């Protein structure tokens, strides 16, 4: 994982070029538009932050290679939250006042987004979160947007899927008590199950970062479910899938978008087969726009993108699109233009921003087959 350093170098070169040009032609080259980013580049959720960051950097490079926006280059100032509480508020304050950014991307993790975004809201700087799916995030204020779908959407979609496609009657739920993401998904899943008449036969909890889930799985197995819903991130999910299959649990296991990462299959191996989850962006998507993104990303970083990479890519492009449409790089104008986004053609789908500043776009459900994520069906909001 060397994304950040290379991006740092890349940015350095770009900046250097700007600086050199600037000394000769200060009158000609207008100052770049500064956009902030705060993400978990180090610490426990560094994977999330770094993959997002790679997507952002790639979007940045493409935008600037194409001459920037409205005649100005774009600059991204990235700050690290170290996956720690208490850091987001400080770095967002730094971005809004020190770096004087006009818009902010971040943070992918809902908890830290909830901490940092209110500060941008107070400063009137629009925030676009790539992957914070917690509904509370956009409720923080009229400056907070997101390009991903929300927990209620995912939870509901997966319950509907269990009911309509898998014909499940009895389901078990295993959620992460330390993760608002997981609890949110479980909550909305349960609500929808009630509507559809699915019985929740077992509920177990774990704490993010745990390694042994056999106890919970053993208890769940005893309740004889038709399917399990395990909203969690891929790190935990890989082990859960593995241990579930080892304990002889053969029923389908459903997850959230947090499942999507190559590590899921690397850890779980064959045990990942027969699990289902929604994705923002499917590598198997055959649309030219998506295929092009995957190719360019793989070429640029030497590895395949994940969902959050695509979301990070879309987040920056959405902001730049708003600047272009609004014709201004003033925070207020950007906010206004963001709110009016309709049918923005992102790599994660056609995005429209609704009145709650959430992205309305389709999701895809994938099934893991022989270690591959196979596109199964699209679900519209």
């Amino acid at each position, binding site marked *: 994982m060397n994304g950040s350093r290379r991006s740092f170098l890349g940015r350095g070169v770009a900046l250097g070029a700007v600086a050199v040009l600037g000394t000769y032609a200060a009158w000609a080259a207008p100052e770049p538009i500064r956009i902030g980013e705060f993400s978990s580049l180090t610490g426990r959720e560094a994977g999330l932050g770094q993959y997002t960051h790679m997507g952002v950097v790639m979007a940045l490079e493409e935008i600037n290679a194409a001459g920037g926006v409205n005649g100005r280059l774009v600059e991204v100032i990235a700050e690290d939250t170290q996956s720690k*509480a208490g850091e987001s508020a400080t770095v967002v304050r730094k971005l809004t006042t020190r770096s004087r950014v006009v818009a902010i991307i971040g943070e992918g993790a809902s*908890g830290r987004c909830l901490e940092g975004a209110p500060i941008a809201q107070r400063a009137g700087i629009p925030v676009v979160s790539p992957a914070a799916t917690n509904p509370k995030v956009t409720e923080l204020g009229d400056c907070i947007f997101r390009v991903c779908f929300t927990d209620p959407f995912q939870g509901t979609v997966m319950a509907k899927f269990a009911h309509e496609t898998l014909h499940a009657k009895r389901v078990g739920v295993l959620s992460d008590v330390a993760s608002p993401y997981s609890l949110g998904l479980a909550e909305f899943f349960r609500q929808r199950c009630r509507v559809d008449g699915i019985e929740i036969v077992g509920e177990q909890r774990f704490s993010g970062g745990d390694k042994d889930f056999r106890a919970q799985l053993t208890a769940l197995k005893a309740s004889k479910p038709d399917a399990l819903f395990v909203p969690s991130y891929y790190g935990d999910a890989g082990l859960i899938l593995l241990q579930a299959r080892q304990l002889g649990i053969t029923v389908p296991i459903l997850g959230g978008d947090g499942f999507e990462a190559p590590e899921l299959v690397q850890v779980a191996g064959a045990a990942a087969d027969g699990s289902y989850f929604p994705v923002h962006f499917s590598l198997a998507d055959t649309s030219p726009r998506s295929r092009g993104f995957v190719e360019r990303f793989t070429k640029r970083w030497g590895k395949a993108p994940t969902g959050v990479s695509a979301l990070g890519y879309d987040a920056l492009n959405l902001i730049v699109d708003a600047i272009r449409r609004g014709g201004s790089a003033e925070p207020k104008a950007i906010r206004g233009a963001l709110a009016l986004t309709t049918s923005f053609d992102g790599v994660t789908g056609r995005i429209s921003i609704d009145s709650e500043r959430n992205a309305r776009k389709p999701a895809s459900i994938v099934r893991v087959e022989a270690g591959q994520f196979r596109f199964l069906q699209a679900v519209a909001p």
Partner: protein
Amino acid sequence: MVLPKSQLWLVVVLLVAGGVSAFSGRIDPYVLDVAMGVGIAITQASSLNLINGFTGQFSLGHAGFMAVGAYSSAMLTTTLGPKLGVSTAVLQWVLFPASLLLGGLVAALAGLAVGAPSLRLKGDYLAIVTLGFGEIIKVILQNVDAVGGARGLVGIPDYTNLFWTFSVAAVTVYVVWGLLNSTYGRGFLAVADDEVAAEAMGLNTTRYKITAFVVGSFFAGVAGGLYAHLKGYLNPGGFDFNKSIEIVVMVILGGMGRHVGVIIAAIVLVVLNETLRSFGEYRMILYSLLLIVLMLTRPQGLFTWTRRKPSAA
């Protein structure tokens, strides 16, 4: 006459804090944010210094007391504040200090609850019990929906300002200093030096230790309240073992049982954290190397040039 002078100092610091705070609108909010972080760190470190440095206990649960204070204080302002129907200024200057006090008191109660039964444990055993307590607090907060559970507590008003942070820091330093600089207060140091001898000289060592624990926890709780209203958001994960370690490091780098050294260490570590930010991923590597090198070269603490003042009546 030493004593009016010490109180004079306190008043001067409070006035300066108030004065600077009045102009905080003109200060870069980021600098302001870091400055308030410094104030909170001074409060945390000085209060832990009373327990770990001066009384010779070894607490690894300071973040837990801080969490108790942060949540209590934030619950008061978020639930009661909107119902009162008074202006923000009134809330910030009346309700907020009351909430800080509440946070401190609840934390002090927690300190009493942890301290009283566990103080017969020594050294590493006490350390692990306090560590365990901190973890227990974290887990409980994660499980209680009323305080937001794992999602955290959102929408805490931003009442913390320069005046409050530095007033609290000044009061903490004054209290710790005042407690120690009296015949009664030398007892804390005597307990740290030799418990058996202290007891034989008629000192109720248990009471001393509990006093240190309760007072230390009180200010940790107040610091928590300030933190809550500075960040505007609380998450149980923010008060884990690593947070406690951060504060312990401040105390040890400053030199256990030094007033000024610990204050300097708190300032330096907060500022260092911000300075190293531009080093991105190398920041923590540098930080850890610095820690090791400092301990190898200046194990008595970084900011200890003079001998501890022998006596001050």
